[in-house]
């Protein structure tokens, strides 16, 4: 019997996340290269888009179901995945490196005696051996890692691998298992959503402000530009430490490492910690008064001018272009 790879998928409010489909695609690719059988597991109550898993290349899903499991419970989720992985004797467990994946994956590594490789941005299985590439030092360097244990737990960075529908499409075989008495020893009792804003860790476009914004009262300009682009608002460490913006928005080495499609840096000079956290963005725009600021070394397009003057015009121009 072929070895198995188990994709552990995340739902939020009864909907599989985009990162879950990325996980399906990567599991499917590894399965092809290493001649494995791929299947998926998801924990939650009703999951409206569960059938979509088939479109992305995996046609066997086990759904552990209980209304108590809509919200994350590290103890219950760990036990369910551990028991199922043991039952099918999975050799590889694949997660997305989301808040949930980061919390859950290492727990399974211990329980299954597996090596653990987190936050991979590339997985090369073409040689028949698995080499995982992951950033270290917030992206200042990369390492290639080999996992020498029999069982392997791997997480992939969200937004890096594309979720593409597969030509292997077949109707998905969904096994529903009622989970009667989950271990809710550690459980989420409430989710407090930040007021309707996009999170930098999940956004395709980020507009960030730094000390050049001169004060918290000017960040409405950043918010307006972000809104015109459908972007998340980010911030440099300087403005977070000054209390202008919440830490959840901080991009950089003691904040979040991001790789959106577009990163717009406004009034950010580009300290090494900040550059480490955002240099892997696909396109970078910098607006800063100082033409010698380090941010221009990583920016694809720069405007070396007054940030306030440029932002207002840019917001209007983007609104105009997107309308027409």
């Amino acid at each position, binding site marked *: 019997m072929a070895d198995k790879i188990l994709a552990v998928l995340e739902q939020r409010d009864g909907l599989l996340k985009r990162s879950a489909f990325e996980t399906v695609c990567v599991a499917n690719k590894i399965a092809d290269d290493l001649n494995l059988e791929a299947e998926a597991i998801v924990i939650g109550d009703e999951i409206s888009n569960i059938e979509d898993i088939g479109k992305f290349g995996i046609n066997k899903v086990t759904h552990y179901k209980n209304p108590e499991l809509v919200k994350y419970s590290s103890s219950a989720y*760990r036990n369910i995945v551990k028991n199922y992985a043991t039952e099918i004797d999975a050799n590889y467990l694949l997660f997305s490196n989301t808040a949930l994946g980061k919390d859950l994956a290492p727990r399974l590594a211990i329980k299954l005696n597996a090596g653990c490789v987190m936050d991979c941005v590339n997985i090369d299985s073409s040689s028949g051996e698995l080499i995982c590439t992951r950033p270290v030092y917030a992206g200042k360097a990369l390492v290639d890692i080999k996992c020498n244990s029999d069982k392997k737990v791997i997480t992939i960075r969200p937004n890096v691998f594309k979720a593409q529908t597969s030509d292997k499409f077949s109707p998905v075989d969904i096994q529903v298992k009622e989970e009667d008495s989950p271990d809710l020893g550690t459980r989420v009792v409430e989710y407090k959503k930040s007021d309707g804003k996009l999170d930098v860790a999940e956004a395709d476009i980020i507009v960030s402000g730094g000390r050049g914004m001169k004060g918290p009262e000017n960040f409405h300009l950043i918010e307006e530009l972000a809104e015109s682009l459908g972007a998340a608002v980010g911030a440099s460490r300087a403005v977070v430490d000054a209390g202008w913006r919440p830490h959840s928005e901080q991009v950089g080495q003691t904040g979040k490492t991001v790789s959106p499609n577009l990163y717009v840096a406004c009034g950010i000079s580009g300290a090494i910690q900040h550059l480490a956290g955002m240099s892997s963005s696909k396109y970078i725009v910098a607006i800063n008064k100082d033409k010698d600021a380090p941010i221009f070394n990583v920016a694809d397009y720069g405007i070396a001018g007054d940030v306030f003057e440029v932002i207002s015009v840019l917001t209007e121009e983007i609104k105009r272009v997107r309308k027409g």
Partner: protein
Amino acid sequence: MKIAVCVSHVPDTATKVKVGEDGKTIHPDGVTYIINPYDEFAVEEALKIKEQIGNDSSVKVYSVGSDSSKDSIRKALAMGADEGVLLKDENNRDSIGIAIALTDEIKKDGCEIVFCGKQSVDYDNSIIGQLIAEILDFSCISVVVDLKIDGTKVIAEREIEGGREVVEAELPIVISAQKGLNEPRYASLKGIMAAKKKTIEEKPAASGNNLTEVVKMYLPPPKKPGRIIGTDSSAVPELVKLLREEAKVF
């Protein structure tokens, strides 16, 4: 109540990373080492919980590494931790190897609350707390920005995408600290002097084989030089055109 706090000695975040001669680790030249920034939040929270619980509680600092890690242990002692132990190992360990060494000692000491930073700023794995908890069969809440411990009941808020989760659990527990949990206190002069006098216990780290292996370390490809397309808002139409046609972002 015994409270453990695990600290890691890491390159300063201002470090410009160069690859070392072995091709697998960073070049040590010119690198300043500091206590892992997230571990400072862990130390602070451990001290706050000790103050809350009262006299019969103590905070012990644990670190795995070479002699130089004593600097970070001493930093935690200067902030107010009671004692410290260095679990010596000159070799590089992966996170599971580190967790095995830490838990071996924490278990002997009978700690019921363990704090650590949510990640170390070198390898950025963000897993040490969960590993420790699973080895010890403790509860664990990671990436914590708010914490209340009342008797054996723990209520914490952890940061996730787009918001916070309120999590309930029971002692014994491992808490991994995120920035925002507290404002780490500065070590007082008295604290620094007292820390200098304290003996840091040294023991060989419990053996733990690495399950993962770094094959090579390298720098990301340099970004191709960008261009400055203007010095004021008259460059905006050009910028928007490039974003549409070249970057195709909208």
